[in-house]
């Protein structure tokens, strides 16, 4: 089961589209499990949220084995700097575990036209599939058309696809089949 928790306001129609898309991508039941406040400890001095701290300190949610929880925030997320600097952050997932977070801050603006709303929804769905994919043991994929391709990559199309490539899909299906429940 995939549970979506919002930490900022997300349009209900966008959430409906997201749950439907996640169900199609992974074949798992998906539902919106309510809202939670942003944990105070996750806020950084520069106004961004520490993605790792947010997942550590967010209020717990009642889950069962193999449930995956996706937290959606509106504020920009940040990651600690690595050997070559700070990588851009569109989201963060506890690899092969049960919690992930994504931000709507980097998505194309929702706007008011049908096209802009559609683009916003599709990109939101792509980032959600990407984060849930990490929870199901998927690594980044070199295929720019795959949802597991890094979100900051320069080879990504302006409106990228929100599907997994054949390799990632098969791998995620295998992992889901082998899951305890």
């Amino acid at each position: 089961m995939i549970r979506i928790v919002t930490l900022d306001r997300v349009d209900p129609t966008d959430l409906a589209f997201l749950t439907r898309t996640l169900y199609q991508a992974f074949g798992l039941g998906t539902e919106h499990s309510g809202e939670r406040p942003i944990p105070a400890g996750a806020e950084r001095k520069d106004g961004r949220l520490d993605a790792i701290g947010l997942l550590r300190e967010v209020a717990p949610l009642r889950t069962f084995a193999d449930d995956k929880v996706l937290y959606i925030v509106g504020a920009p997320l940040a990651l600690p700097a690595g050997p070559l600097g700070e990588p851009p952050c569109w989201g963060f997932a506890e690899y092969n575990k049960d919690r992930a977070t994504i931000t709507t801050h980097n998505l194309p603006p929702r706007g008011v036209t049908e096209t802009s709303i559609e683009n916003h929804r599709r990109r939101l769905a792509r980032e959600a599939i990407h984060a849930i994919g990490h929870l199901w043991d998927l690594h980044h994929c070199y295929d720019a058309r795959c949802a597991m391709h890094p979100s900051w990559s320069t080879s990504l199309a302006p409106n990228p696809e929100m599907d997994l490539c054949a390799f990632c899909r098969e791998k995620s299906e295998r992992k889901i089949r082998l899951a305890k429940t």
Partner: protein
Amino acid sequence: MRGPPARHPDDNARELLPAPEGIISDADQLVPGDRVVYPNQGVCEVVGVEEKDIAGQKLQLVRMRREEDGAAVLVPRNKLTSIGLRRVAAGAQMEGVFHYLAAQFDDPELDWKVRHRDNADRLIAGGVLGVAEVVKGLHSLSRLRPLPAKEREQYDNARHLLVHEVAVSLNVPPGLAEDYIDFALMPPAGAKFDLKPPPKPVLLPSRPKKKRPTTEDEGDLGLGDLGLGDLGIDLEGAIEGGEGAAAAEGGETAEAGAEPAEGGAKEGEGAEAEAAPVRPRAEARAKPEPRAEKRPAKKPAAKPARKEKAPARTAPAKKEKPARAEKKPARKGKKR
């Protein structure tokens, strides 16, 4: 930057190659709680040494626990040094890996057999840099063309191993480690790194080569039985010419290596050695004349035969067609 080098040129250099940094050469170095990297398996934690009775033999086994999934790994104590167990890469070594990942790479190995075999060896014996080389090499190849299924799997496995080792080494979650790796591999627009020269690529031990027939064996190949002598080719002369060429090359290298004081005598010998084989070479060069004669001799022999056949195929009523028959050989002649 060029791709990883080929295998070590020296066949007997397996023992001479530098072992990957941090490799465990003695089982006594391990203490319960140590984190080690088991090649192709990932990061393991040493639990302890235990003695087991297996098939009537008492074996001392080192028990390890794979951190990723908690799987138990038991290795006989005396085989610990041969499996390539090594310590988790240290800070400086890991920094080198990131500089290697971020460097430009434009020379992937295009022969898939060589590539797949080398990559498999790198994953086992190359240390953390070997794993990074596999990821980098296959990633740069994937920009040229999609990877075949087997290599896609290998790429994913290598990435998995690298992500976990980076995570353990830098003490960060694996998800963040993967972001670090891809930040170096696929930098976002506008990102510029202050890169240091990457570490030297891993040298792989050479594999046993297939036995090639020696020149003596080649002499017994029965070339004389092929009837090539009837064609007017002087086989002995050609072979001598080949040997002479090799000798001449050898003479040149000997000259190059010789000291100037001894140069006079050696050069004289070399000159003699060169002079002897040059004759058949000159003969061989002069001999193309009969070949040139033979080729035109063959063509007219073949063409008239067809010309003769062509009227036989055609019905006797269509006698005007010889013009067509003349055209056909003309076309073939052009193709040749």
